[in-house]
């Protein structure tokens, strides 16, 4: 019996003016699977991330299905309410606001009149920060994000993505601002997401990181899928050689 995809992308294209950022993308993402999405700069990774997370709309003709049901008017609010959480490359944090404001942004805990339950949000943020090993004595949930280092900000962005009961987590370059020890923690955390049954899309420029956690590779090249294969089909050397080959092809073009 074939598994049902959590999220399916069918004929997804995205153009900016005359430039194709993505062209006829067909992809399926399954529960309990980590997909490493890789490719050179300009390959379309971030555009694809934005489409999955609902912050960009695909061109007409493309379809997004959630557990087999086609959705219309795709938006970030719809994506989040269905259970797709994203850690964006730019982290999508509001720097002048507090950590707990950022964690609950768009999903504030409110009473029926829309007033925020600060106490509960602060407590839950504190618990969450402890859970992911974010145990700074200097910063509290009431600290503003602009006081944090790059790695700490990434911690807030990741905390936000796992707080809610998500079905799919998309991480766009989550380790880019991190030290080696922090990177190892994030990779372990990604494996933990898989074990809890979530679908994970991991985007990275680092082929070793991408290989280490993946169950499946999707290599994008100039907006198209060049490779979509299970991890077992490629050794780490094959994988890195492939990435080099595509990078050289891009450079020649």
């Amino acid at each position, binding site marked *: 019996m074939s598994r049902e995809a959590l999220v399916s992308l069918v004929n997804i294209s995205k153009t900016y003016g005359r430039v194709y950022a993505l062209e006829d993308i067909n992809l399926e993402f399954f529960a309990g699977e980590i997909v490493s999405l890789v490719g050179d700069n300009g390959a379309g990774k971030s555009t694809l991330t934005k489409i999955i*997370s*609902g*912050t960009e709309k695909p061109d007409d003709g493309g379809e997004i299905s959630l557990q087999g049901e086609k959705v219309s008017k795709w*938006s*970030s*609010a719809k994506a*989040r*309410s269905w259970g797709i959480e*994203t850690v*964006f490359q*730019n*982290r*999508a*944090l*509001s*720097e*002048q*606001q507090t950590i707990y*404001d*950022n964690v609950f*942004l*768009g*999903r*504030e805990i*409110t009473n029926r*009149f*829309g*007033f*925020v339950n*600060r106490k509960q949000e602060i407590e839950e943020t504190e618990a969450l920060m402890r859970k992911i090993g974010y145990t700074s004595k200097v910063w509290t949930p*009431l600290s*503003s994000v602009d006081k944090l280092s790059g790695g700490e900000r990434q911690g807030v962005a990741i905390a936000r993505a796992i707080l809610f009961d998500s079905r799919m987590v998309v991480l766009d370059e989550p380790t880019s601002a991190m030290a080696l020890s922090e990177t190892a923690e994030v990779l372990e955390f990604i494996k933990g997401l898989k074990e809890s049954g979530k679908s994970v899309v991991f985007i990275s420029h680092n082929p070793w990181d991408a290989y280490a956690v993946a169950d499946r590779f999707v290599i994008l090249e100039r907006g198209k899928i060049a490779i979509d294969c299970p991890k077992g089909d490629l050794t780490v050397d094959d994988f890195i050689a492939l990435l080099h080959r595509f990078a050289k092809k891009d450079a020649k073009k």
Partner: protein
Amino acid sequence: MKATTPKILLPERYRAVVGASFFFCIMLLLFTLRSPGVFLDIGIYSAIFLSLPLFMILGLSLVFCVVAGEIDLSFPSIVTLTGFTFAWTLENTGNNFLIAAPCSLLVGVLCGLLNAFLVVKLGLSSLITTLGMNFALVGLTQILNQGQIRTFEELNDTIIRTVLVGSTGPVPNQMLWALVLAVILGLVFHRHKFGLHVRICGDNPEAGRAMGVNIEATKTICFVFVGVASSIVAIQGVYLNSTYFSTVGDGFLLPVLAAIFIGGTPVTGGRGTIGGMVIGAATVAFIQTGVVASGLDGFWTSFGFGLAVVLSLFGHRKFSGRLTR
């Protein structure tokens, strides 16, 4: 051994209010030292409480706009136009407040929606667009009003006038209304999710969009707030003076902007304070009335505004270290 000076750790969210209050107290002290007879008498405060609510109500709405990363410079002309709408409707409905007030509020809402359409939908600069709208709406009002001064002496003894602009003891009722509004908007700004979304609009709208915040709708509501507040001020103005004239909005622009910035709301958006704005408005109202009351020439008023804005920046930098840009 080195002696250490303990630092006062003030929570960040209160720093702007404390900075503005500090500056206000110094100013009040200077006025009192110069003219103790005037500033230790309740009469001066009753006089100040006549104009302060108008600055407060306009400033309260404008804080939302500024924090959302926009500005609305058309509010003086919206006061003029909504005041005209109110006065004209009163004249033509036998002074029916229940028809005239909603009409005025509706025009305020429409002005806000028009500004939002131009700025949020079409992406025009709010500074330039609303400056243009300020001229356009004043011009439109003058065309409609044809220079008439509309008097409403018959409103003087009405219950509505007493409720809106009468007095409770020595305190004018409009001051009480303004304080009620300040408390409500303060709660909305600091405790309601709408207030957070307003801050996100001015801080990082892309982050807001990514998290499902409707940035466009939030900014639109901010512009509508300004339209509604302008209408409330216009209605109070007509009742207060029993007269409508088409220069009613003149003189609000710079003092209200000064009140916001003195209060500790930076022009860069993303953060602000309702409490600070109230103190900023009080500072402006005290300068306006206090300069003359303390025996100085009225020409010192503008100088006082300028000095207050610049000095308050130093105060905010001392307390929050942020308002240098």
